[in-house]
């Protein structure tokens, strides 16, 4: 549906987007994830034709957004970071203008306006001046505008920023609903939001693609458990001597707990975590000491996110090989 090919955007010496490539398939909700300044807005602006790329191109259903802007833009509805609203107008007038500019006229226009007003639930404020509306309603009017002309892809740039918790929930619901009939791409720097709403995550940092996958798979692939936490009644030295012979273990941290128990955090670089825990179990069984608790620790997507966006040099080399260009 949308293919972004080797996109690069430089502002003077600063490279905001660096050789970014990915594909958007129809019928999914994509979460565009990255910290502030990662190049999310820049990428979205280029995808919608608001900004030119220094190099690379964006194809919307085969139409280059810069070579054939008209057919390409008809397929996209875009809500920029700051909703582009004319404060002196009412949502009704505003939608009429956008609809006409998208080439919809007459009965078709009034029908579509009615439909998007219903979808975004702005019926009661449709004749009020936009300047008097709350931020949540303004965001909805912005989304309504993007829906006009029945575009196949809806692109929303940080649609939940600056809203109160109730409004955030409402907008998330709306995005989920839109996802049933459109391909939706929305950006956010809040991971939990992306995790709950979308079925594909595009993660970028420093203008580069970090990962593109389903949230579940992403977690499985990038966050396979590598830490085992255990509680035992053995002493610190004994526990050390039991664990050190297992060569898959890279480090052991022990900590004395109340009641004379010992907690040990074991790290491993082995992919097969169960084989490591089996060895630990057997070692303790042979020694006669009890393993009272043993759990596999999973890093959260949040931690991965921080790690990925924190040090680009390390993560690039680590992740780039792993991430296939979908």
């Amino acid at each position, binding site marked *: 549906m949308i293919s972004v090919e080797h996109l690069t955007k430089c*502002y003077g010496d600063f490279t905001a987007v660096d050789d970014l490539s990915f594909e958007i398939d129809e019928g999914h909700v994509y979460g565009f994830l990255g910290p502030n300044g990662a190049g999310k807005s820049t990428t979205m*602006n280029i995808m*919608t*034709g*608001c*900004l*030119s790329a220094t190099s690379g191109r964006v194809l919307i259903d085969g139409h280059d957004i810069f070579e054939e*802007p*008209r*057919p390409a*833009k*008809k397929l*996209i509805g*875009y809500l*920029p970071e*700051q909703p*582009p*609203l*004319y*404060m*002196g*107008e009412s949502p009704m*007038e505003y939608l009429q*203008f*956008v609809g*006409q*500019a*998208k*080439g919809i006229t007459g009965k078709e226009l009034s029908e579509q306006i009615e439909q998007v007003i219903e979808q975004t639930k702005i019926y009661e404020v449709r004749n009020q001046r936009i300047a008097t509306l709350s931020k949540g309603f303004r965001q909805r009017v912005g989304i309504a*505008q993007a829906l006009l002309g029945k575009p196949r892809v809806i692109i929303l740039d940080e649609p939940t920023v600056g809203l109160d918790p109730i409004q955030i929930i409402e907008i998330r619901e709306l995005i989920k609903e839109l996802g049933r009939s459109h391909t939706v791409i929305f950006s956010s720097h809040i991971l939990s939001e992306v995790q709950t709403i979308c079925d594909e995550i595009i993660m970028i940092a420093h203008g580069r693609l970090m990962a593109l996958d389903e949230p579940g798979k992403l977690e499985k692939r990038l966050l396979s458990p590598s830490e085992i936490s255990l509680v035992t009644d053995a002493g610190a030295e004994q526990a050390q001597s039991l664990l050190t012979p297992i060569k898959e273990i890279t480090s052991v941290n022990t900590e004395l707990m109340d009641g004379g128990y010992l907690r040990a955090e074991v790290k491993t670089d082995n992919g097969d975590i169960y084989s490591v825990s089996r060895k630990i179990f057997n070692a303790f069984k042979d020694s006669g000491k009890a393993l009272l608790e043993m759990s596999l620790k999973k890093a959260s997507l949040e931690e991965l996110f921080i790690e990925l966006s924190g040090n680009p040099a390390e993560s690039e080399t680590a992740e780039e090989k792993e991430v296939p260009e979908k």
Partner: protein
Amino acid sequence: MIAVLKHELRIYFRSLAAYVFGAFLLAFVGLGSMLYNLQAAVSNFEYVLSFGCLIFVVIVPILTMRVIAEERKLKTDQLLYSLPISTTEVILGKYLALLAVYLLPLCIISLYPLYFSQFGDIYLPTSYGSIFAFFLLGASLIAVGVFISSLTDNQGFAAGIGIAVILFNYYSVSLSEYVSSSALGSLVAICVLVFALALIIRYVTKNDTLAYSFCIILLAALAILCWVDTEALEGLLPDIMTALSLFERFYVFVNGIFDMTGVVYYISVIVFFLFLSVQSLEKRRYN
């Protein structure tokens, strides 16, 4: 284009802009016709217009200052970029809306000669020829205003620069009498102008090579001209100032000549500045 036109008209007629523009134009032309046609009992309506065109200095920048600057300020220009309409359509729609706002009071003004002809002997062809030229003059000043508004996101700045530019244009013929007409004077002034233009090009395009080559080529051309024929430089600066005056062309019509070159001149100015506005809007996409 139609959508932009309708939208702009709605904005103008909802805000005060269109009414203030119309009221000032009508008041000033009305004042002129009272002074000339009624009190002094002159039967030439065109003199009223030549008096009235001074008001453009104030009302055109006030009308045009928001046209693009405001879109930028409120970030609504992003909407225009993302809609399936071209930048040319946006500028044309906006310009046509401005012309409509301008034509409305002008329609009322064009009734005056007919009305006066009931009470005296008025030569209607010159009156209407002048009204037509008055329309073209205003239309080209509006095109200049649109371009100035496209350069900034600050409306006040756009208005200030607009007033300065139009005022300078209004007085450029009178000023040209005071500038040096010697070859050396012209040479120095033109060199300064070339440097200023190169600086503006460098600022607008952020392209050093373009600005430097523009500067060097023009200076070289000037040097060659100076070497080949020094006399050609004499009086060049005042001539350029006169040629650039939009108002000077209008006075030709007032004097009773329907000057086709003037019409072509105005239309070229309009096309040129609208083209520049489109480029200025396009340029925003590139940085």
